[in-house]
């Protein structure tokens, strides 16, 4: 009975969790009644585990990422000329800095380019990374938004809304001051499990380009609301960070406003025409 091919296929699909509930029921009845089939199921499971072990041992490529980043940079026509040039080099420099673990100082070098949105992004990223290597990623530790928000008074000219997202799995951890574009700006620090999420709030930037990106495991998402620009930075996976940003924005917008405002990832009509 165990020899026929269809049974074996069903057994495989059963092991893979691909059978419909009815088929599962039928298969489990057969497994209970046929010891040989039961033994074969054990073997398929054992094989599956062994194959997974063998495949997991395949080494990853240490140089692939660098090569791809370099190549895509070259493949991008805009990066080879005009204002794309220095920005590309700047990004590459910071990338190298992050890889070398020297990024903490690396971002600060570009602070004087306060006119360039890219430089602001570097500063925001540097603030986040500095927070991670500091004993605490925040200057004031509090999960109470009514403590964190007033703490910014007198330290920065921006008084950020401090939404409470603890019930959604993103507890507030505290706040800190970062220097972006030569200005002191507030940063809210949230946690998600062991990940730290920095939300830095600065004055609205004049340029909407280059909104979100991921570098060496750190994702930066940017959006604007009113006359403020928000950056969310974290090593959280990009999807969860996007989810966090959506929640953050919906809480800021207030319960009455249910309209979903998409991130401005497409706001580069000018870029598209280049």
């Amino acid at each position, binding site marked *: 009975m*165990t*020899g026929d*091919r269809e049974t*074996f*296929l069903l057994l*495989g*699909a059963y092991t*893979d969790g*691909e059978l419909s509930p009815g088929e599962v029921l039928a298969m489990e009845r057969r497994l209970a009644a046929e010891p*040989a089939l039961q*033994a*074969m199921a*054990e*073997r*398929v*499971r*054992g*094989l*599956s*585990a*062994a*194959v*997974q*072990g*063998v*495949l*997991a*041992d*395949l*080494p*990853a*490529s240490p140089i*692939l990422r660098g*090569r*791809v*980043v370099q*190549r*895509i940079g070259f*493949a*991008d*026509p*805009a*990066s080879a000329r005009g204002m*794309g040039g220095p920005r590309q080099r700047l990004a590459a420099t910071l990338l190298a800095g992050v890889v070398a673990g020297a990024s903490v100082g690396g971002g600060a070098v570009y602070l004087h380019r306060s006119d360039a949105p890219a430089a602001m992004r570097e500063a925001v990223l540097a603030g986040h990374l500095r927070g991670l290597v500091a004993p605490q990623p925040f200057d004031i530790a509090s999960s109470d938004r009514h403590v964190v928000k007033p703490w910014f008074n007198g330290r920065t000219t921006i008084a950020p809304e401090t939404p409470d997202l603890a019930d959604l799995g993103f507890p507030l951890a505290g706040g800190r001051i970062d220097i972006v574009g030569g200005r002191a700006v507030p940063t809210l620090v949230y946690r998600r499990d062991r990940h730290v999420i920095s939300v830095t709030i600065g004055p609205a930037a004049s340029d909407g*380009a*280059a*909104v*979100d*990106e*991921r*570098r060496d495991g750190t*994702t930066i998402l940017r959006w604007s609301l009113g006359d403020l620009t928000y950056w969310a930075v974290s090593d959280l*996976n*990009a999807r969860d960070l996007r989810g966090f940003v959506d929640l953050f924005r919906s809480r800021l917008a207030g319960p009455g406003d249910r309209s979903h405002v998409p991130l401005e*990832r*497409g706001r*580069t009509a000018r*870029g*598209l025409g*280049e």
Partner: protein
Amino acid sequence: MTTAARARFSLLVLPRLDEGYRLARCLTGNATDAEDVMQEACLRAYRAIETFAEGNVRAWFLTIVRNAGYAWLQRNRPRAVIFAEDLEDGGRAALDTGGALAETPETPEAAVIAHDEAGRLARAIEALPVPFKEALVLREYHGLSYREIAEVTGVPIGTVMSRLGRARQHLIGVLSEARR
């Protein structure tokens, strides 16, 4: 097709390089060629990134890697693609007679942790014809569902199921024979 494309590429593709690489590695059989395939795949992904609507990014990218891998195989190992449908059914006889079960008290698969057996299994996977290998890798390493594997490899779900079954049958046969 500049800043936005690059940002999207960074967000969608760069985090998936490693898993794409594993697939390329299994298709080409070695690290250097896998890197070439991945570079090609990344260029293709980059060019296509603006036309990619929201959806299953993983399956989308793995499809691109897989197609780049096949293009590489066609150029460099045409036999691997053309004669791929043949799979010696080492396990078939054992299954038909039920012999493999009767002969070995403990299952060989459980004992595969032993080092030389893991090596044997690795070689047997390596030697699988490409369509069977990719189905197995997409299932066991990438953890894709049958539907996703069907999407990535461009075949019906039934074919995915039978390729997986054949690959496993074959591997069980190889391990059983080694035990004898």
